[in-house]
């Protein structure tokens, strides 16, 4: 049995993402634990964790969609056999609350986002996809995170420090790394994320909290202008094709 915890402010969106997860796990026992209108992500995830019984435990935004449903469950479960925490985007070198700051070649994963007109309808951000599963990760984005139950039960979510909707993800994954758990980015779970991060004043507030909490354990900051690969794409089919680079070995 696996547990999927989804906070949301929209019943409609919650219904849609729940139906999506049911379709992703047609042959695997699973429970979906929706948390409607939580005061913070950490609060929602801790409540969901306490209510859940499954292992692994998946924490998901309500505005994502996995683009290759038949491959999702087998790949996810196979990857989780060799790591404790799995995400879709992250870094092997964390320097502050922004996981992407270290840039190429220290950031990994790929995420598709929608684009408004007059552009093509999708933009693919390729942070780094050298292989299907990239290990030795220090911190990850929270759009989707899968934990072994013993790992997240020990760590839990820091609702005291991160009492809103920012940097909860980098905090918990970095603490997992510091505790010796094995983190990995799965590049072969192609995902569409309908929202982008908001790096506003509230983000800066929580970034400072993160720095105060972790500054002695972070890598020294270097500032390099960098860009990762981006592609505008006309359709999901094109995206799916581009999200399976030819240098990967065939799927097992």
């Amino acid at each position, binding site marked *: 049995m696996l547990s999927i915890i989804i906070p949301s402010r929209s019943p409609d969106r919650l219904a849609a993402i729940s139906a999506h997860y049911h379709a992703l796990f047609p042959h695997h026992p699973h429970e979906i634990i929706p948390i409607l209108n939580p005061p913070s992500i950490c609060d929602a995830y801790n409540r969901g964790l306490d209510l859940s019984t499954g292992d692994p435990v998946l924490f998901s935004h309500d505005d994502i969609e996995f683009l290759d449903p038949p491959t999702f469950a087998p790949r996810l479960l196979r990857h989780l056999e060799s790591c404790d925490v799995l995400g879709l985007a992250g870094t092997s070198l964390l320097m502050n609350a922004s996981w992407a700051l270290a840039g190429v*070649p*220290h950031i990994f994963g790929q995420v598709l986002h929608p684009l408004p007109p007059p552009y093509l309808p999708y933009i693919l951000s390729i942070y780094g996809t*050298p292989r299907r599963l*990239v290990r*030795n990760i220090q911190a990850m984005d929270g759009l989707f995170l899968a934990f072994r139950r013993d790992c997240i039960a020990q760590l839990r979510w820091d609702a005291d420090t991160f009492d809103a909707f920012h940097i909860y993800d980098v905090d918990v994954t970095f603490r997992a790394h510091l505790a010796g758990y094995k983190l990995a980015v799965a590049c072969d779970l192609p995902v569409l994320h309908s929202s982008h991060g908001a790096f506003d004043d509230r983000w800066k507030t929580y970034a400072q909290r993160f720095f105060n909490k972790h500054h002695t354990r972070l890598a020294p900051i270097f500032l390099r*202008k960098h*860009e990762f*690969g981006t*592609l505008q794409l006309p359709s999901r089919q094109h995206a799916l094709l581009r999200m399976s680079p030819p*240098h990967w070995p065939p799927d097992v």
Partner: protein
Amino acid sequence: MLSIVTCSHRPDRLAAFHHHLRPLLADIPHELIAITDATGLCEGYTRALHRSSGNLLLFCHDDIRFLSPNPFPTLLRHMQSFDLLGVAGTSRLLGPHWGLARPDFLFGQVAHPGKISPFEVAIYNAPARIIPNIQALDGLFLCFRRACIQSIGWDAATFPGFHLYDLDASYRAYLAGCKLAVACDIPLLHHSAGAYDDRWEHAGAAFIRKHRTSPVLKQPYLVPCGGVAVHTPEEALEVMTPPYWPAEPIVSPERTAVPC
């Protein structure tokens, strides 16, 4: 023996390049062959091929610099498995530039002098130290086994100038069944970028006629997987050595021998 061939019309640039090479080649049996009056790269390289005696031949530009301290043991190790090695290329050639392929079929990484910082690293794709199954390579750095380049030759009749000689020779090597690879772990600084002028278009048209590739004759828009602005060659080297590669194998003296 490794023969390193350079065509150069600039004595100062050639001297600087050889000065750069010598300490890197201290433990490698080698010869440096300079062609200073080439009318085209195919013509110059063909003359050098006849003059050379190495069983490996490295044809390279005079404005490259190796960024790692020991590039040649790495090169020799790779050449034990391949017939032709470059540092940038494609696994699916579509037309008269390797960069016309889909971005995920481009491989390699090269540093250049930058516009916003002293250097910029273009990372086309560097998922592993060595990328096999390559179809065509850029000519800034091409290392052939002698048997391969002797059978392929340089086509000075079709490509009398300074363009497309590289794509033609490497693509013909691929078509002939030679094993081509891109070495991502021989990081280079290249002081010039390609010049896509009328002569390039003329050579491109000749390439299309010869190889019946896609007739698209346009300046490639290279979309690298990543670009990083750095301040020093040392920083470029760090960026070009990604953390997900395995450690480089320790090369014993016997294994640095030039393969036959």
